């Protein structure tokens, strides 16, 4: 922001923008009179932003020409036309300069033209067009009207943007309390707002003033019966608690917290004489259904152009619809710990829903009665907007002139709901083992693996296990003498077990050497042959998987 004074040869504390034609003046005057480094009664103009990521850092940066149009002390000659004015230099007819460039149909246009005699008389520009004398500036809402109607009859104007000097809204609330007498125990603000508000609050009662500030930053005031006052962005907080169990025949009914509206007129704060910031948005579907137009007027000081007003109106219509579904739920037992502002899980016939407690009564009989509203972000705003009709006089800027262009705004509220239903399946896994060949230990009696095995349960200790057959048994030749069979290698055979010799003789053995089976006894067959053509295990080895699962237990999330 910048403050300006009118140029005077003796005024060495002049602050002026360096851009545009002023450069030359600076070069010439600046060579003899140095620009001061400290100026009393000046304001630093910076951009103040909160970064929209997890860090939520606040950043202060230098504004540049795109962000702000410096209002230069230079005056322009104004000639009135129908729905437009012509601007020219004070003493000749060329198109004048603004913001560093000569005004033309393609240059950037000044936001406002400000009366050189009275700064509250301002005109909002709409377009620039070339003309043979000066430049033509189109104005909105001026057809058939002259500037005299507004009491503006100066022939000279400044061009640029106006700035109000205010305070951060949270600081302003604290400041209001520091000056006023009040009986509150404590006053606190939560969080730092990034909205700045400039408003004269002389002779305005504190609650009205704070609600007005709240409409700028969507904060809301909250006070309890102990006299504590809080000004905070969110009064609703999650409570890890369910609300249900009505005692006896408790009744639940729909009890809207605000009047039903199917047409909302949002009036913004105009800053120019020809501003018309009143937008009316209709919910035609609701109007048709209800058979009547129910209008509500909202004044939103943050609205400074038409599209913003339309957004506000559309949003308020949507939230108004939501607020119609507010519930009154009575006779709850054991609910003495709830407070207004708690978000609870409300048990009802249609399932559990998230509801915010707006009002409640705890009675001495142990019953609690609740006024609930389906919780949604932005709820604070609707309570702020609909809650208070008190208005702060800003008639100085008011512009109540009829429009020349009638625009019709319709709003249709359609909804898409995104729902998630979740489940968990837990299944015990008794044991698991990656696929491997049966080991000698596992293949001991009575757990020999053989044949086509799909399942196998250990008869002793340990987990049940599964096995896949057929395994492969080595087929080798050998010779027999006494109780010993000699082969080239016994690799792959169990330490004791059964053998088939030449596919017809069945023997058992009790010991195993590197090349010998010992303790060989005939089990069936005629006799043990001295020379054995093929010798193989009676029970081939299996591939063991061992992966046993129990019953699945399903739980709803």
């Amino acid at each position, binding site marked *: 922001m910048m403050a300006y004074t009118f140029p005077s040869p003796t005024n060495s504390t002049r602050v002026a923008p360096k851009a545009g034609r002023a450069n030359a003046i600076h070069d010439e005057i600046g060579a003899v009179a140095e620009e001061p480094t400290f100026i009393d009664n000046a304001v630093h103009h910076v951009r103040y932003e909160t970064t929209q990521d997890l860090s939520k850092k606040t950043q202060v940066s230098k504004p540049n020409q795109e962000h702000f149009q410096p209002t230069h002390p230079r005056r322009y000659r104004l000639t009135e036309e129908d729905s437009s004015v012509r601007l020219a230099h004070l003493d000749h007819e060329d198109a004048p300069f603004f913001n560093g460039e000569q005004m033309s149909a393609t240059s950037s246009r000044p936001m406002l033209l400000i009366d050189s005699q009275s700064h509250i008389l301002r005109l909002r520009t709409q377009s620039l067009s070339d003309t043979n004398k000066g430049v033509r500036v189109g104005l909105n809402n001026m057809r058939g009207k002259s500037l005299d109607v507004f009491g503006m009859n100066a022939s000279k104007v400044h061009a640029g943007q106006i700035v109000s000097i205010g305070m951060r809204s949270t600081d302003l609330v604290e400041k209001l309390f520091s000056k006023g007498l009040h009986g509150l125990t404590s006053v606190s603000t939560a969080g730092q707002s990034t909205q700045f508000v400039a408003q004269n609050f002389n002779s305005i009662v504190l609650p009205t003033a704070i609600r007005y500030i709240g409409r700028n930053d969507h904060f809301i005031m909250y006070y309890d019966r102990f006299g504590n006052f809080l000004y905070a962005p969110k009064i609703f907080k999650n409570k890890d608690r369910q609300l249900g169990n009505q005692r006896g025949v408790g009744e639940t009914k729909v009890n809207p917290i605000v009047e039903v509206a199917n047409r909302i007129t949002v009036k913004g704060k105009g800053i120019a004489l020809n501003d018309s910031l009143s937008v009316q948005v209709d919910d035609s579907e609701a109007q048709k259904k209800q058979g009547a137009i129910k209008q509500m007027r909202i004044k939103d000081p943050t609205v400074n152009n038409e599209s913003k007003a339309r957004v506000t109106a559309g949003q308020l219509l949507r939230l108004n619809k939501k607020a119609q579904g507010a519930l009154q739920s009575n006779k709850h037992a054991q609910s003495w710990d709830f407070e207004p502002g708690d978000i609870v899980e409300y048990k009802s016939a249609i399932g559990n829903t998230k509801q915010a407690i707006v009002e409640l009564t705890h009675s001495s009989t142990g019953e609690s009665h609740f006024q609930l509203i389906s919780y949604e*972000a932005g709820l604070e705003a609707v309570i702020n907007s609909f809650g208070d009709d008190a208005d702060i006089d800003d008639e100085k800027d008011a512009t109540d002139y009829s429009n020349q262009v009638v625009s019709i705004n319709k709003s249709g509220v359609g909804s*898409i*709901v*995104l729902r998630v239903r979740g489940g*968990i*399946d837990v299944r*015990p*896994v008794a044991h698991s083992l990656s696929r491997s060949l049966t080991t000698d230990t596992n293949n001991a009696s009575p757990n020999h693996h053989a044949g086509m095995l799909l399942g196998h349960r250990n008869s002793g200790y340990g987990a049940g296990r599964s096995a896949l057959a057929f395994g492969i048994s080595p087929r080798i030749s050998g010779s027999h003498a006494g109780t010993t069979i000699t082969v080239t290698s016994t690799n792959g055979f169990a330490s004791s077990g059964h053998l088939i010799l030449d596919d017809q003789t069945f023997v058992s053995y009790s010991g195993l050497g590197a090349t010998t089976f010992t303790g060989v006894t005939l089990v069936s067959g005629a006799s043990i042959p001295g020379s054995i053509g093929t010798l193989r295990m009676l029970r081939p080895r299996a591939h063991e998987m061992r992966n046993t699962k129990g019953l699945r237990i399903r739980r709803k999330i």
Partner: protein
Amino acid sequence: MPMLNSIKRRLVEHLATLVNELHVGSDGTIATSEDGGARTLARVVPRVQILDDTSILVEGVLNSSHVFSKAIQEVYLQYKDANTGEFIPVYRADIHSLTKSAENEVRFSFILEVS
């Protein structure tokens, strides 16, 4: 006015591309819509399947190889861009405490419905 089914189908198709990670975590605090992540114990790539014009199924399995010393107390779905690392939290639920050992396997399934 009602929203039309065709756009719901389109949203469902888009939604199916917006879930590519399922996390289980150890943070049991109550889930709110302001949550932005989980205290992750493990992350699996879930199977995402469009069931019909209004719903998708997201399913993730933790087999017996997942063993955690802390109990699972939350499940969290998110979209993560493999190139930029940018992530968008999609869903978080706090669940009854569950001990994940080598002796159990857990399957999480979610139906996301646009209606």
